[in-house]
């Protein structure tokens, strides 16, 4: 919006004051008032209205405005009084015109002023908007960085949790392997003794000293040795098989990071997890499996093994001196339902809502990450399932895992 920079209080000349007037009508009226032709001229003699040719000897009346004479009204026909009255009328008209122009120009000036002020405000607003936009972008970037940092920390904690459960697993496995290794070792020492006896007897046999041979045979109680030798070898083979089976089971955990899905019967995974913890609970608890027939499902077995192991280890930790852990599986409403119950110390009601929250732990600082159940829940949810808990302080806890079929 550009407006003429007219100042409202400027000096007006005759031409400007007459501009926009109905001049033809004015000329008619003046001609009637003055009984004939007339001339309205500026002080400089320029014709503004009326007859073009000058009069020979006209009567003249000054047209004054704002202390000054702006022009003259000339007439050859009108008397002095009439001419002066007509000039007064023209002055009144010019006065009104001046009033209108001043008001209009002042109005224009103030509108321009207001507009400039608005423009200024608009510019300030735009600038402020740009500042906020920049700030918002910076904030977004900072949030993104924070989220990245948090995600990294979370991944590290998950990894730590995984390693912690693997550590517990390793302790269990070591115990489990130590047992057969112990008796195999002992059997083998006995077998070495038996072999030495056989070497002595073989030497006597070669020399043909049958009397001596018989004496040594009896002394070494070789009748028992031959029987026992076979038995301890058989026992050792069974022990070695047991170790082999544990090692085979362990493979189920060696692939916790495996991201390929497999079709499995979850009962196998439950048995396996029970085997792993069995070593830890042998003296302390009775482990009862009530596994119903399950359809095979597509899942990440390594991940689910970790869930079951975590839940079982939690159960073991909750047990008093003597306790019972029950593992049940069945199908309910097109879902596989797995329940792991203990009759241990239970979870106080106030904590029940929070046990799946990250870093919530009732253990002492340093003895757990507080992520075990969080990881369980995340894994189950990643399989499209859900996990629930029922507990009564002092009576025991049941964790229930539901996994969709198909």
């Amino acid at each position, binding site marked *: 919006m550009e407006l003429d920079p007219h100042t409202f209080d400027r000096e007006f000349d005759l031409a400007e004051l007459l501009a926009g007037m109905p001049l033809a009508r004015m000329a008619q009226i003046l001609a009637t008032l003055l009984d004939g032709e007339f001339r309205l001229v500026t002080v400089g003699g320029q014709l503004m209205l009326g007859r073009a040719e000058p009069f020979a000897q006209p009567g003249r009346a000054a047209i004054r405005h704002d*202390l000054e004479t702006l022009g003259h009204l000339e007439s050859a026909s009108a008397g002095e009084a009439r001419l002066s009255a007509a000039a007064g009328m023209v002055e009144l008209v010019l006065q009104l015109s001046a*009033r209108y122009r001043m008001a209009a120009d002042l109005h224009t000036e103030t509108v321009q002023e207001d507009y400039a002020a608005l423009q200024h405000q608009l510019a300030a607003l735009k600038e402020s908007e740009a500042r906020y936009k920049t700030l918002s972008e910076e904030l977004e970037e900072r949030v993104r960085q924070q989220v990245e940092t948090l995600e990294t920390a979370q991944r590290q904690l998950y990894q730590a949790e995984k390693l912690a459960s693997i550590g517990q697993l390793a302790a269990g496995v070591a115990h489990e392997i130590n047992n057969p290794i112990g008796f195999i070792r002992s059997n083998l020492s006995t077998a070495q003794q038996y072999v030495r006896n056989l070497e002595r007897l073989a030497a006597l046999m070669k020399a043909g000293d049958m009397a001596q041979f018989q004496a040594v045979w009896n002394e070494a109680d070789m009748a028992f040795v031959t029987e026992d030798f076979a038995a301890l070898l058989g026992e050792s083979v069974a022990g070695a098989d047991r170790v082999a089976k544990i090692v085979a089971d362990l493979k189920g955990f060696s692939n916790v990071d495996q991201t390929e899905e497999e079709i499995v019967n979850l009962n196998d995974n439950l048995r396996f997890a029970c085997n792993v913890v069995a070593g830890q609970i042998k003296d302390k608890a009775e482990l009862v499996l009530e596994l119903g027939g399950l359809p095979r499902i597509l899942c990440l077995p390594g991940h689910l093994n970790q869930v079951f192991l975590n839940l079982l280890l939690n159960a073991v930790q909750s047990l008093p001196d003597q306790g019972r852990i029950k593992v049940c599986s069945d199908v309910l409403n097109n879902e596989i339902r797995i329940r792991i119950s203990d009759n241990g110390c239970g979870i106080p009601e106030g904590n029940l809502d929070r046990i799946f929250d990250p870093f919530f732990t009732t253990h002492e600082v340093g003895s757990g990450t507080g992520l075990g159940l969080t990881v369980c829940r995340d894994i189950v949810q990643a399989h499209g399932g859900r996990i629930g808990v029922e507990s009564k302080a002092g009576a025991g806890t049941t964790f229930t895992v539901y996994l969709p079929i198909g």
Partner: protein
Amino acid sequence: MAEIDEVNRKITLKLVYYGPAQSGKTTNLMRLHDLLAPDLKGEVMTLETQNDRTLFFDLLPLGFRTPSGWLVKLKLFTVPGQVAHDATRKAVLSRADGVVFVADSQRAQSVNNAEAFQNLEENVQRVGLDFASVPLVVQFNKRDLPEAQILSEEEVRARWAQAPWPLVFSSALIGEGVKETFARLLEQVYPVLDKFCALQESHGVDRQSFVAAVTGG
């Protein structure tokens, strides 16, 4: 700033009556019209009013001829005092050669006076004039009101003791102090004008004759 028109041999001055609403700016102009007797005196042109309050401005033109034959024309304006008309106030104040600040002597109006004076200072700067050098007279009007209602002259003088501007007490309603206020302004305007257009040297008008010519003696 004064306008010099070499062609029409004319010097035009603009003097502005400023102040809070209803302090008596228009009344000052009306009384000046009655009291002054210069060579040339126009009518007071009131542009628009609402309930007797100025919306745009009032204008009183005065003038005299210098010995050199030039016309010196003074246009006296009032501004609308109401706070809402600030843009109009600013436009009227533009290009002013001198200002009379008409204050209301009533105790209750002290805050309005202060705000209006601050507004004057701001607007003077906004229209590109130098507040320190613009000719200014402060008039405390309405001295005709009961003493209990108005600040005493001592109080006013004490408050304005540090200010450099002439202080005049007036009652525009009965015409007291109005002409004196105007004369004090003219005395201040003269040196600036003389410097600007060599009034004394080229036109033969000294300070005393300038004031006398405008006021009519």
